[in-house]
């Protein structure tokens, strides 16, 4: 049990839009529930009918096979009916606006909307216009709460706690919603967060979020419990943030030599998909002793089951009235 206290007895919010605003107890509640599903998912009896009759719509404005599949599987394992809508950015431009789409879907009375959008704040905007539960599956560079929760569950399973750990988040912080959600979660739970990246990939005034900043990888990894690598999001970059992929890997890619600075039992994490040879060397990515990257994917389904369960149950209790 965490020093941050026991799990909350219920999840009090209508949506899950971000880690911001969640208490340690609420985070623990989701993780405890997710741990239950993690065990169940490894058993022969993976499915339940706890959300039978519920409709979950996955509305994805950005392509993502991994997250979409994870959410779809999570909802199906709970017995919900699932519809996937992948809306390309180009069809958004000629078609209806985000709010019109939200209103249209809302008229079909879903119980939960899982939304991914390329713009920060878009999921919150949408949540204001519908009366079902909304789950943020990533909005711009803002938040990706289920990713931070699945990372936390993975860490907790290996380290037994989420407090008093030193976590280095390395790489493309500037373009990363994963980094923001993880900083918020780890700070809330009482761990220390370091950011390691070249100065161009460190957003302005991020030190005010209670993190330490390092530009040198070896220094930043020193005595860390967790090394969390981020994907270099070349598709989001306007202008020159890094001179070349080769130079980036040389200074900021994770390889054996740099990893040697972290604690000997430090975990290696990555939200995927990995750019092998860009931010991470295959040798460390595939190290079965240290890398928990595949377990993160596994915990993703469990965490999303827990979140969907809590949100849809809240929605059923209130009938959509906040």
């Amino acid at each position, binding site marked *: 049990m965490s020093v941050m206290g026991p799990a909350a007895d219920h999840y009090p919010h209508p949506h899950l839009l971000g880690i911001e605003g969640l208490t340690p107890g609420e985070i623990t509640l989701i993780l405890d529930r997710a741990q239950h599903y993690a065990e169940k998912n490894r058993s022969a009896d993976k499915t339940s009918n706890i959300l039978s009759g519920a409709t979950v719509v996955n509305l994805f404005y950005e392509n993502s096979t991994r997250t979409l599949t994870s959410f779809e599987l999570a909802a199906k394992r709970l017995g919900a009916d699932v519809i996937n809508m992948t809306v390309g950015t180009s069809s958004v431009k000629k078609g209806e*606006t*985000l709010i019109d789409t939200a209103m249209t879907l809302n008229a079909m009375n879903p119980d939960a909307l899982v939304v991914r959008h390329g713009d920060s704040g878009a999921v919150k905007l949408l949540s204001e216009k519908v009366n079902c539960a909304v789950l943020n599956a990533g909005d711009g560079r803002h938040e990706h709460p289920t990713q931070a929760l699945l990372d936390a569950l993975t860490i907790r399973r290996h380290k037994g706690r989420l407090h008093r750990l030193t976590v280095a988040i390395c790489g493309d912080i500037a373009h990363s919603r994963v980094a923001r959600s993880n900083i918020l979660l780890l700070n809330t739970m009482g761990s220390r967060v370091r950011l390691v990246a070249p100065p161009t990939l460190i957003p302005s005034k991020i030190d*005010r*979020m209670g993190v330490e900043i390092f530009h040198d990888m070896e220094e930043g990894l020193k005595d860390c419990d967790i090394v969390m690598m981020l994907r270099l999001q070349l598709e989001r970059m306007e202008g020159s943030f890094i001179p070349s992929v080769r130079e980036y890997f040389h200074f900021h890619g994770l390889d054996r030599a740099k990893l040697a600075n972290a604690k000997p039992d430090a975990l290696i994490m990555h939200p995927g998909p990995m750019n092998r040879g860009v931010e991470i060397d295959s040798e460390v990515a595939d190290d079965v002793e240290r890398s928990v990257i595949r377990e993160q994917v596994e915990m993703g389904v469990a965490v999303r089951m827990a979140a969907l369960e809590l949100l849809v149950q809240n929605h059923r209790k209130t009938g959509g009235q906040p």
Partner: protein
Amino acid sequence: MSPAIRAKGAGKKAFINARLLDPVKQTDKTGGLLIEDDTIIKSGADVTEMSVPEGFEITDLNGACLAPGLVDMRAQLREPGFEHQETIETAGKSAAIGGVTTIIALPNTDPVIDDVAGVEFIARRARKVGLAKVFVYGAVSKGIEGREITEMGLLHQAGAVAFCDGVKTISSARLLRQALSYSAFFDGMIVQHPEEPELSKGASMNSGELATRLGLSGVSPLAEVIQIERDLRLVEMTGGRLHFAHISTGESVEVIRKAKKRGLKVTCDTAPPYFALNENAVSDYRTFAKLSPPLRSEDDRQAIVAGLADGTIDAIASDHNPQDADSKRLPFAQAAAGAVGFETLLPIALELYHNEHMSLLEVITKLTRTPAELLRFKGAGTLNEGTAADIVIFDPDRPWKIDPYQFHSKSKNSPFDGRLTQGRVLRTLIDGREIFTEGA
């Protein structure tokens, strides 16, 4: 439309027992004003109930303020081209309620005001509408594309009062140099939107902790001062007249303060959001507070107030920028920037007086006399005898809550929605005609 906006016939009118704010004589005292048809024939302390000549319709203002109508040197009217957002008529009504009697409109319409026909079109439309007096800025570059200068001399002759490229920075140093140097022969003024375009590309708010938390791309406040510093060199080189619009940062105030001390021909204005709000207004992705330049830090806001108080900032303009709901009800990065401003210009500016940063006369001067002087208007921003009877009568203390749905502008995008404020326009007169009467 509202019955409040209608023209009562001109004629002989007397206003007495007013708190007379005269920005030309720099006096603030009890007095009155006589209007005959469209002209002020007398103003001052000696206009009293006893002294009003025979035949004048007397209105006792019971101590309400009387000042020249506001001269708003930066507004977008959206006509021609964007009539779903605003027209010269709806803008005129909105201005009337705000006490604005002279508007200088930006040229970024469709088509762009970059030729004589455009200038004449606006003048003709405004005359037909018969509300606020509307003047235009001519574009500095053809199509506001930032390449070749327009026929500035001809535009000026046709009535363009100064030149700017709308909401775009004149970023080419060569173009700005030519425009400054060419327009000097007819004492033309160039108005710059100071924001270094490369540094601010793709950004939707002020950079800093809040932008980082919200995951939005931020523009550094330095993008403004970098542009200003370069442009000051060009002013020095050419001897032209340059005016910086809506300055928003403390660094800008500092640099302009020094340049003025050195005797450079530079001036600047700001708009109410920059002295009344800071970047926290965009928390929760509130797109109505998305402006260009973006709202800045609290330190910057205070520096803008100080710049107004010490005279570094010459004028206050509304920066009226109507945007329809569909342009604002979008994810923050995609939403249009800008806010409507006519109907909140006076009350928000009066906060400077209520908060004791400036005297009432100083606030009114920045809304009337200084913009009129910058634009070389002899007959606006004054209560002098023989000038047009464009006046505003207001109660500086009356409290009210801003509700954009009551606005007469076609667009409702105000960052001041719900703000409790003080100061209401009671009457607006243009050329002696009462075009707005509060509560009527």
